[in-house]
């Protein structure tokens, strides 16, 4: 199958000018196959977050090329990166980061609303279907603060899937959940990966959860092992 993500010699350094220049990523080459499920692991300070931000088109790499869904995505301006993020990427954050002013369903719809500017009936149906899929159909109109931590994270997960992204990036998605809930959420990610065929790249600290992933990318001192 085709690669949904391809990184070639990606480098990232910070500083320069007056402050000393620090290179965080020293030439990353990697590829993710369409529909794969990979864990990105490494000690803190290894550059995981930076790599994830670059893959997520939130930060441009200093050097190297990044292809997303067959398109060259490095060297683009903010507007172009924003469009690509909306169309091809889904984000799951450690602290779910739902918008408290909106209901669960509206939060799920938000990527579509943000990208397209408005919502169609089909979008609403998809949002409801997704919420139902994760067992939150009856909570669709509750605000995030009325939901438990596990429920909130499930809303955040289906929000990431709303726009049918090619790649979902998850940054410690179970970081603030208890072991039991974390395992459930991880199992859910696996299921969604199979059902929707969406590629997942998950940053995690938890070796047991990482062990459940078919592929593990180990990052150490800015290099993939």
């Amino acid at each position: 199958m085709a690669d949904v993500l391809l990184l070639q010699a990606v480098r990232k350094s910070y500083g320069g000018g007056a402050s000393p220049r620090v290179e965080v990523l020293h030439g990353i080459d990697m590829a993710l196959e369409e529909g794969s499920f990979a864990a990105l692991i490494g000690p803190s300070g290894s550059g995981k977050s930076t790599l994830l931000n670059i893959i997520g088109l939130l930060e441009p790499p200093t050097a190297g090329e990044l292809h997303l869904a067959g398109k060259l995505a490095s060297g683009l301006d903010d507007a172009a990166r924003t469009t690509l993020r909306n169309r091809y990427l889904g984000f799951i954050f450690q602290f779910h980061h739902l918008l408290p002013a909106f209901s669960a369903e509206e939060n799920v719809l938000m990527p579509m609303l943000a990208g397209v500017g408005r919502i169609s009936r089909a979008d609403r149906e998809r949002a409801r279907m997704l919420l139902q899929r994760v067992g939150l159909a009856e909570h669709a109109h509750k605000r995030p603060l009325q939901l438990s931590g596990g429920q909130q994270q499930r809303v955040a997960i289906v929000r990431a899937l709303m726009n049918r992204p090619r790649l979902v990036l998850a940054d410690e998605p179970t970081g603030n959940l208890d072991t039991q809930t974390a395992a459930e959420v991880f199992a859910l990610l696996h299921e969604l990966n199979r059902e929707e065929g969406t590629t997942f790249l998950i940053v995690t600290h938890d070796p047991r959860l990482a062990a459940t992933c078919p592929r593990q990318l180990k990052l150490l001192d800015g290099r993939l092992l």
Partner: protein
Amino acid sequence: MNFVWTVAWRLLREGRFQSALILGGVCIGVAVVVYITAIVNGLQATIVERTLSSQAHVVLRPADRLNQPVMPAAKGAIALADVRKRTQRENTIANWARLLQLVKATPTVTGAAAMASGPGVAQQGGVRKSVTLMGVNLADYRQVVRLDNKLVSGQLQLGSGQVLIGKELAADLGLTPGSRLRLQSASGAQDSVQVSAVLDFGIKDLNRRWVLLPLRSAQNLLGYRLDITEIYVRTSRLYEAETLAANLSAATGLTADSWQSSNGQLVTALKSQRASSLMIRVFVTFAVALSIASVLVVSVVQRQREIGILRAMGTPAARILGVFLLQGGIVGLLGSLLGSLLGAGMAVGFSRIAHTEDGSPLFPVALDSELFVSTALIAFAVGVLAALLPALRAARLDPVEAIRG
């Protein structure tokens, strides 16, 4: 469900306390502006109306007679002369019918009246009062100065041998409609006339001095033959009277005084009042803008992470900009609606409290729809402009930094 509208509205609703603060600020500011404007406009309109109720808007007089040198000084020579101003005693307008027609035909002129005025004495029962004899054609004069509302008693008619007098003079000489009195001019000519009506010109001095009589009688008494001394003009464009005066002066060759130049102090007072009310409005508007901007800046900082999330999931920066600009606009518009109500209420309340002696309001407050519409538009624009800085800040947030907090 539109992104900008939905998110702007939800964020405002969610941040209740901030929204209440900002709305309160806008509301009070707009209320002050509406109140001041209504009071000042009402006051000015009333003052001008009262001042002009017995005045012409433009008065045409004969040009001053100037001393002409009999022999011009030779070129290069310096002439020393002691020139005294001539008396303007016999200065009248002859052949005025053509001029009057010309004036009446001028655009924006709604009325013009010939006037032959001069000093005189009114006598009755041994009492002599110095008066101003004002000879008019009543129909023309009423086109220039409204008399209906000034009638105290009698009938507004000015047949041959009839006069209209002010109520103070009537009291001084013990006159009522139907009574007779004797008029004498400075030259000694006399006439016996009958009072047809007693008027209240609104100013005691005028009530004591003004005697309106038929134009012919005045010309005879004052010895003007067929001449007149002034042409009174009324215009539909009150505040363009100065331009009209200049135009009429050029067209007729007469001197023209607008009500503004005859009431210099009043005009200055009105202007400075308007200027100070404008200053107040401008500074209040600035204060409102600053309060909107400062609350929105805080709101942007507080919602930094949410903005970052929205940016990360692919919200274009322009839409984030739109959200906060719209918030400023909504706050401005809503605040101006509330503020207009409050300001109008305050103005009406003031006019209820402030009474003249006879219990009628001191002056009507000028609350017209134009004031509310312009206030709402300005408030909306100020809201959007004030939101510009916070909105730019929100749109320029780096999602990575914003999410990290």
